[in-house]
């Protein structure tokens, strides 16, 4: 399987076989991601890290991944310090980054920005989020977390909870889990339901997701609970946000009836949707999940560069 030079724009660009290949390869990266082993795999390579929108985990884990493999990173986390401020187009900024580096990772507020960047760059583009569009490396690290914790992804009960309307991670994840034949339950306030087109996509892949507003029943048989934040910044109407924020909160008492080995995931940052007391339980894997961003991104940087361990 050859990923050399491949742009990573959307999880939909990958087959299940390709995803499996990436996940298995990422397992090999774990000791390097932890600093237990060292590698010079990407020595001499430069990554452009272009973040037109704020990010903590995605940007830092990409930069950590590149540094762990002995590559170098250039870029910015604040676009106001770039020529974009002078009116430069994204296309021209990408042409520059393409000339100065071997791989480009980019987060941008406009949907479709990564697809456009890929058309203007010879170097591979790794989409680190384009507005409400795609965030494929988050999806891959979510899959990797399930794969790593449960030893498989396929047939199991997975509950996606929270903002299923605006949350881009849950759209990609629902699609990817449908590829694997997982049983999906969508739990959200009525106004933040999973969009119909996403549900249809899942059905087209053979999944039969169910939607509900009630969390208790859904949790009973869950193997994986994926919690999302109600994202204030995606709401066109603040009143609507105030109405739904705080609808669900995962607390230790809510977890009394769940399966012993159920895991709780969250793409982070969290606000109030998971009680900090849950962090101490065996169910909480969200900090491990955040760490998993490093091995999965190491795997991707290595694969698109065409140099493997």
């Amino acid at each position: 399987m050859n990923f050399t030079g491949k742009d990573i724009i959307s999880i939909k660009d990958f087959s299940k076989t390709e995803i499996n290949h990436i996940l298995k390869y990422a397992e090999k990266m774990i000791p390097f991601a932890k600093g237990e082993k060292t590698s010079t795999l990407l020595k001499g390579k430069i990554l452009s890290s272009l973040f037109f929108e704020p990010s903590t985990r995605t940007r830092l884990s990409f930069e950590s991944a590149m540094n762990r493999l002995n590559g170098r990173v250039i870029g910015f986390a604040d676009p106001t310090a770039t020529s974009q401020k002078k009116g430069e187009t994204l296309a021209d900024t990408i042409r520059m980054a393409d000339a100065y580096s071997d791989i480009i990772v980019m987060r941008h507020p406009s949907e479709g920005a990564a697809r456009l960047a890929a058309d203007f760059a010879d170097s591979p583009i790794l989409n680190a989020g384009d507005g409400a569009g795609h965030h494929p490396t988050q999806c891959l690290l979510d899959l990797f977390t399930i794969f790593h914790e449960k030893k498989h992804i396929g047939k199991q009960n997975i509950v996606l909870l929270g903002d299923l309307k605006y949350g881009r991670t849950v759209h990609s994840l629902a699609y990817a889990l449908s590829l694997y034949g997982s049983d999906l339950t969508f739990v959200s306030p009525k106004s933040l339901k999973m969009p119909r087109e996403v549900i249809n996509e899942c059905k087209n892949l053979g999944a039969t997701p169910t939607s509900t507003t009630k969390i208790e029943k859904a949790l009973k048989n869950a193997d994986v609970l994926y919690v999302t934040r109600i994202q204030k910044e995606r709401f066109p109407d603040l009143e609507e946000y105030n109405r739904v924020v705080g609808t669900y909160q995962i607390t230790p008492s809510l977890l009394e009836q769940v399966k012993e080995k159920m895991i709780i995931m969250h793409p982070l940052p969290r606000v109030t949707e998971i009680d900090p007391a849950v962090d101490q339980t065996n169910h909480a894997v969200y900090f491990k999940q955040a760490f998993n961003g490093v091995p999965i991104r190491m795997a991707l940087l290595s694969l698109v560069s065409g140099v493997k361990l």
Partner: protein
Amino acid sequence: MKPMKIPRIKNGTVIDHITAGNAVKVLRILDIPQKQSSTVSVAINVKSKMGKKDIVKIENREIAHTEVDKIALIAPKATINIIREYEVAEKHKVELPDKLVGIAKCSNPTCISNGGEPVESRFIVLDKEKPRIQCYYCDREPDDIASRII
């Protein structure tokens, strides 16, 4: 013999089998009357074997391929007849290509193609029979295609 409601034209284009009620949209796509000084005849809700249809006859203008693509978006069953000296010189059905470039504008205001970048709008055609298109950049499918045509 049935009486002819719209007279024959000597030279120009006859667009037949337009989905009933869509003739006015076709005129808008073809920039009529702005781009046209000769006579244009329009028949709406004409009875035919296939039910009702609209017909547009444009004198002294042979419509171009890019314009045909646009028509296919709102009238996928239309036929284009190029008329020369009262005879049908060319006849073809409109057919949507697999991709549309620079023909419609994405309905997503935060799509990068609406952001002042040096690119033309691009759509992937999902369904040619009952036209459905998807933005190449942001994946959005416009609900009302006619209103998005440039």
